[in-house]
């Protein structure tokens, strides 16, 4: 008994903590994951510090201040470090506060989708039968309608604005989450430890929450982390088509849509307005790249086939 207590003192760490450390170690081993994480952290800091970096001048901080109504964008200058867009909206202000909008859209949409996907997927996968049939056929209907067509129709129905974009993306994205989690639950449900739990007298709720979900969550978490970037892209695309937020809102897609008329430049100089196209595009790309790298890292860390067990 003496030696046993000694051993335990040598290993005081709680196993869950140990697992988390192991996860963190694997995560940090890959330079790409670190780059992805750094990008997201930088964007996060910018979003949080927005009021300090670019103090709002309007009552609504998400309204980009604009200096006059001149149509032609103006190049970077002392007053506007990154230049202005069409109608003289300040680019830097828009990008800084737009980071907040980007996080809002990405996190809200993905979180809501996760929630809906997990609930519906768990119902469909665990109980099967008619429940499964109804939920999955509704999901199929969503798959059958072209994404942008449906998005446009919904935006028209709900009304323009950032909120509308978020709602539309939630309505259109949940089927893929539901499918992924359902298939994982179907796999987990057949395992012997679920039968063992049933033989132990565990209730359905207990089996779902303490056995099935912890084992079936990985794929959908990976999907979610990869999807935050994609969601931003889709939101930007909707804005570009004029279906997103109102003109002048601090939202990256909105800023890109303001450059629509200036992509080609002037007859003599094709790159006359490069800043109005390149800068917001670059920022969006960096943000999406960050999430994609992070998503890949999450997959590498969580994928059971790549993990040691």
């Amino acid at each position, binding site marked *: 008994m003496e030696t046993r207590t000694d051993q335990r003192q040598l290993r005081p760490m709680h*196993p869950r903590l140990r697992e988390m450390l192991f996860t963190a170690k694997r995560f940090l081993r890959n330079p790409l994951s670190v780059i992805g994480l750094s990008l997201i952290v930088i964007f996060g800091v910018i979003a949080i510090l927005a009021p300090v970096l670019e103090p709002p001048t309007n009552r609504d901080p998400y309204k980009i201040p604009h200096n006059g109504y001149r149509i032609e964008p103006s190049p970077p200058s002392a007053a506007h470090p990154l230049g202005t867009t069409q109608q003289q909206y300040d680019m830097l202000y828009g990008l800084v506060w737009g980071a907040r909008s980007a996080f809002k859209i990405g996190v809200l949409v993905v979180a809501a989708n996760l929630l809906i996907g997990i609930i519906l997927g768990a119902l469909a996968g665990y109980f099967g039968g008619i429940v499964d049939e109804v939920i999955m056929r509704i999901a199929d209907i969503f798959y059958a309608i072209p994404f942008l067509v449906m998005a446009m129709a919904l935006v028209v129905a709900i009304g323009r604005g950032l909120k509308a974009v978020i709602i539309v993306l939630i309505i259109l994205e949940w089927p893929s989450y539901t499918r992924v989690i359902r298939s994982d639950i179907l796999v987990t449900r057949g395992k*012997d430890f679920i039968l063992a739990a049933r033989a132990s007298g565990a209730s359905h709720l207990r089996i779902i929450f303490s056995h099935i979900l912890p084992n079936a969550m990985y794929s959908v978490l990976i999907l979610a982390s990869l999807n935050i970037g994609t969601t931003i892209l889709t939101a930007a695309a909707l804005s570009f088509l004029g279906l997103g937020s109102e003109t002048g809102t601090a939202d990256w897609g909105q800023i890109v849509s303001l450059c629509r008329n200036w992509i080609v430049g002037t007859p003599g100089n094709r790159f006359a307005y490069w800043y109005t196209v390149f800068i917001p595009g670059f920022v969006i790309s960096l943000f999406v790249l960050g999430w994609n790298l992070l998503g890949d890292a999450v997959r590498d860390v969580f994928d059971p086939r790549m993990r040691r067990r």
Partner: protein
Amino acid sequence: MHENLIDVRDLKKYYPVTGGVFRRRIADVKAVDGVDLAMRKGECLGLVGESGCGKTTLGKTILRLQTATAGRIYFGQDGGKVEEVEAMLHSADAQARARAGAMLKGMDLNRMSGRNLLALRQRIQIVFQDPTNSLDPRMLVKHIVAEPLTAQRLVKTRDVDARVRELLGIVGLTADHLMRYPHEFSGGQRQRIAIARALATNPQFILMDEPTSALDVSVQAQILNLLKRLQEEFRLTYLFVTHHLLVVKYISNRIAVMYLGRIAEMGPTAEIFARPLHPYTKALLSAIPVPDPETKREKIILTGDVPNPINPPAGCRFHPRCAHVREICRTVEPQLESVDGGERKVACHRWREL
């Protein structure tokens, strides 16, 4: 007369096969097709048969992990009362049959639900074949072993830990192992954890679903000895499902041989090994390798596969593969009959002559 812990009567488990656009039921897989089986308190009954003969399905039906299509499962019921209900069920009087049906609601494991079933779950447990599959990889050993206790709130929260430690001690593990995940253990240790979990509620009956098949040979012996010790110590009743005849010979008091959803032969282990009566049992036994290379034995090699359980052969189920087939075997299904007026039973038309 011995008191039966489990009395299975005419148990059937059919899996529907659906087809066509409307998913209509077009056929049944008859995994278990009319099994009668009685188990005495404290015995170990070995259930043997080849893959797909329905032995695991039979076990899981007894555990009510699956609900049987038809038949009765009496668990821990008074023998006299069981006979009475059975007699009423088979009587010509419709009223008596209806009354028996009402009585069965409280007696038949297959018809129980809710609280009654939950209460029985304490007394019936299972150990699975592959411990890598039967232990939740995301749970600590401490929580795995405690699950039957916490799921049914059988023990006060503060006493759970002490009980788990005690259980680990019983199966030969230590308190060091409490805070670990299943993947940190070897196969044999994992099976010990699974056994500790099965013991947690102090069950009377444990279904052993090939508990040693997934283990190394050296570890198999350890686990078998552990199971044997536990059986004596806690006066457990085992239903030992396996296809490994020597394991069954070592641990079982009685053996039941299953073929295609029915019991072909049953009796005390020693008698079955000494004098198998059913041609199928003979073939099974002749397949056991003998460690002496000098011994020449007649091996009975069965031809063909197990027939499709969707459409089992008419008459004796074994007749397409049997060397001693006669006309009667093709038409009349043999019933399980007693050989010596006791518990030695065989379902074969020609056991007397062979």
